[in-house]
C-alpha cells in the first residue's frame, strides 16, 4: 500500500500543531503570539525586541530547564517551548505574520483558491522565470542571478509597504488586498528558492 491518501490543504509546510484543543492542555489557549511575546498586534514588528523576548521566554520554559522534573512539567515545558518556537517563526517572517494577522481578523486565507488578475504582476512573473531559465547560458551566471535576486527583493519590499498600509486600515477591502499581496509574496518566495537552488547547483558544479 503506497500513499493511499492526499493532502487536504496544500501549503508551504505543516500548520501549527493544535495543542490548544483536545487532550493537550496548555495554559492560556486564547493567548495570541503577539501577546505571548509582549508585542503590539501589528504587521510592523520590532525584530530586535522579538529576538530578545524570544530568548527570555525560552530561557524560562525550555526543556533543558526541566530535565529532572516530573513528567507533567516536562510535557508542559515541551509544549510551551514548541509554542514559543512556533510564535517566533510566525512573527519573524512577514509572510507567515501576514497570514496570521489575517487569521486573527477572521479572514480565511486559502492560497489554493486565491488567484490574481493583476496583469502587471503576472507579466513580471513570466519575465523573471524566463530570465531564470536563461541564467545557465549567460556569460556571468552569478551576476545574472544577482540581478534577478535584486529585482525580487525590490518587489517584496514594495509588497511589504503595501501590507503595512492594508493592515493599518484593516477594513474588509484592505484585508482582501492584503491577502492578494501575500499570495504574490508567496510567488516571489518560491522564485527566490528556485534562484537559490540554481545558485547552489552552479556553485557545486564549479567546486
Amino acid at each position, binding site marked *: 500500500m503506497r500513499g493511499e491518501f492526499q493532502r487536504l490543504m496544500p501549503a508551504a509546510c505543516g500548520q501549527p500543531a493544535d495543542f490548544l484543543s483536545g487532550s493537550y492542555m496548555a495554559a492560556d489557549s486564547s493567548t495570541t503570539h503577539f501577546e505571548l511575546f509582549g508585542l503590539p498586534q501589528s504587521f510592523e514588528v520590532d525584530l530586535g525586541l522579538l529576538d530578545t523576548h524570544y530568548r527570555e521566554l525560552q530561557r524560562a520554559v525550555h526543556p533543558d530547564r526541566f530535565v*529532572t522534573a516530573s513528567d507533567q512539567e516536562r510535557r508542559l515545558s515541551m509544549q510551551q517551548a514548541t509554542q514559543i518556537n512556533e510564535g517566533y517563526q510566525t512573527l519573524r517572517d512577514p509572510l507567515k505574520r501576514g497570514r496570521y494577522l489575517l487569521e486573527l481578523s477572521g479572514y480565511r486565507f486559502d492560497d489554493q483558491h486565491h488567484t490574481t488578475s493583476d496583469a502587471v504582476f503576472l507579466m513580471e512573473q513570466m519575465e523573471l522565470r524566463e530570465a531564470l531559465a536563461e541564467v545557465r547560458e549567460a556569460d556571468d551566471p552569478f551576476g545574472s542571478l544577482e540581478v534577478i535576486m535584486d529585482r525580487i527583493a525590490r518587489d517584496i519590499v514594495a509588497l511589504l509597504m503595501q501590507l503595512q498600509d492594508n493592515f493599518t486600515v484593516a477594513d474588509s477591502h484592505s484585508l482582501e488586498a492584503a491577502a492578494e499581496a501575500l499570495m504574490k509574496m508567496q510567488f516571489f518566495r518560491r522564485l527566490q528558492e528556485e534562484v537559490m537552488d540554481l545558485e547552489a547547483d552552479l556553485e557545486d558544479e564549479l567546486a
Partner: protein
Amino acid sequence: MALLQISEPGQATAPHEHRLAAGIDLGTTNSLVASVRSGVAETLPDEAGEHLLPSVVRYAAHESPVVGREALAAAVDDPLNTIASVKRLMGRGVADVKRTGSRLPYEFVAGSSGMPLLHTAGGDVSPVEVSAAILGQLKQRAEATLGGELQGVVITVPAYFDEAQRQATKDAGRLAGLNVLRLLNEPTAAAVAYGLDQGSEGVIAIYDLGGGTFDISILRLNKGVFEVLSTAGDTALGGDDMDHLVAGWLMQQAAIEDDAGHSQMRHLLQQARAAKEALSGAVSTGITVTRADGTTWSGNLTRAQFEELATPLVEKTLAPCRRALRDAGIRVQEVQAVVMVGGSTRVPLVRERVARFFAAEPMVDIDPDRVVAVGAAIQADMLVGNKPDDEMLLLDVIPLSLGLETMGGLTEKVIPRNATIPTARAQEFTTFKDGQTAMSLHVVQGERELVDDCRSLARFELRDIPPMVAGAARIRVTFQVDADGLLNVTAEEQTRGVKSSIEVKPSYGLSDSEIEAMLKASLAHAEDDRDARRLREEQVEADRVLEALHAALAADGEQLLDADERAAIDAAARALEEARNGTEYRAIKQAIEAVERASSAYVERRMNTTIRKAMAGHRVDEFKSS
C-alpha cells in the same frame, strides 16, 4: 521538579548536593568522557593516563568483551571479532550496510528487525550493543574517577545524524545503564566549550570532521544563548576515508591485489593512518607494508602527494558549508570565527582550505579531540541542576526534513530542515478512495522529492476510519520533535476521533522490550541489590519532591492556591512523608505520583507565572533604559 524550584530574585536558594554528571563523546575512532569538577570541565583519563578510549570492542567466546586499546591492538590478528568504527553502522539497515559495508571487514548476519548483526566469536552482536560496551567502559571510568554513581549523562551525536541514528545512540545509552539526559549535537557541544570560555557574541561556524562523519553548523551566540541557525553535513565522510585513499595508494605501490584479506586490509589501514598523522607535522614520511606472503614494500609518502589524494575529500566538505550558509541566510563575510573540531582537522590541508573558504583564521585552542566531550560535560552539569542560575541556553535544530509519503511515492514535508526544536507541526490529509477505512502512513526523513530517495523511518496504520466518500475524511497527522531531536507521530481522524500514535521506532532499531530483556539479563543475579537500590532511589526522589514543593509553597502558595487546593496538596505531601519513612519503594513511588497529581494545576499556574514574569521583567528593563 525544576519548575517548583524556581526561586524569587534575591531569595537565597537552598544549597543542594552536587550531582554527578558527565558528557560523553561517542566517536567513530575514539570516545571520551568529561565532567565538571570544581567548576572546570575536563576529560577524564583512565588508570594509564589516557584520555582517548579507542572505539573498538573485541569479542571472544565465553568472555566479556574487551574495549579500547587492548582491543585495538588485536585488530590486525583478529579482524572479524574486533569491531571498530561501529558508529558508521548505528541506525543502519542491512541494505545500507551492504552499500557501504564492502570496506568494513566484518561478517554480517541479518537480525530479526532488519538490523544488521555482526557475527563474532562472542555471538551475534548489534551495533547498539557494541556502542553500549564502549559507553559502559566510559561509565565505569567516570564513576571510579568521580567516586559515585552518575546521575545523568549527555551523549553527543553528529548534528547530521538522522532519527534512526539518534534513536540507536539513545538505546545504546540505556543499554549501558546510563540515564541519558540529552543527545547533544557535536558542533553545538564544541560551541559551548568555546563560547563559555570566551563569552563571544556573533555568528560562528563549527567545522567538525571526525573519523567517520562530517558536520557543519552555523550558530548565533548572544548573551549565553547558542542558537543554531542551520546545520548540514555528511554522516559517511571522515578521516577514515583519507586512510582508505592512502591504503589504496599503498596497494598500488606495493602491488597488492584488490582482494586483500581482512588482516591485510587492517594492516594497510593502520599504516595509512600512521602516515596521515605523521604528515600533519612532517612533509614526508616513510612507510613499510608487509604483503600476505611476508615480503615487504618500503617507500615514502610526501605531504604534497597525500594532499593530492585528500583534496577531493576536503572539497566535498565545502558543498555542505555553502548549503548551511544559505539555509542560515548568512553571507560568508558575516562569519566571525570558525571552530575546528575532530581529529581530522589536524590535517594542515583541511585547516588551510577551511580558513580560505570562510576567510577566517580557524580556532584550534581547545584540543579538537576533546572539545566535544568538554562541551557535553558543561551541558550535563547544567541539566542535572548543578547551576540553577546559569544563563546558558542551547537552541538546536533538526538537520533533515521530516515528512510523509503521499500519492505516487512523493514526499510531503511536514517539518522543514533546520526548524528549531522542540517543534510540532500538523498536516491534514484525506482519503483517496470511496469507503476507505484504513490509511497506511509512511514517515520519511530527507530532502528529496521521491520517497525512495529518503530514509524510511517508520510505517504505521490508522484503522477504523468511518467509511465516507473519497475526500470527506479529515485525518490530522501531528509530528512532534522533542529537544533530543526525536520524533513522535500521532494521527487522528477528526470527524470521529479515531486516534493512532507511535513513537517512531526506526525499522532497524531495538524495540523497548528487546532493550528491557537485555538489561534484565545483565541484572538478573543482582535482584536483592536492586530492591535496596530502588528503595534508596525513591527516598532520594521523595526528599527532592518534598523540598521543592515546600520551597514553592513558601514562595507563592498563598497567591496561587485557594484553601481547598492547598489542603489537598498538604495531605498528599504528608502521605508522601509517611511513605518515605517506610521500606516499600512502590509505596513511595505511588505517593510521589499522588503529590504530582495533587499539584498539577498549581504547576501549570506556576508555568504561566514564569512566562509572564519573563516578559514583565523585560518591560521594566526597557522602560528604565528608554
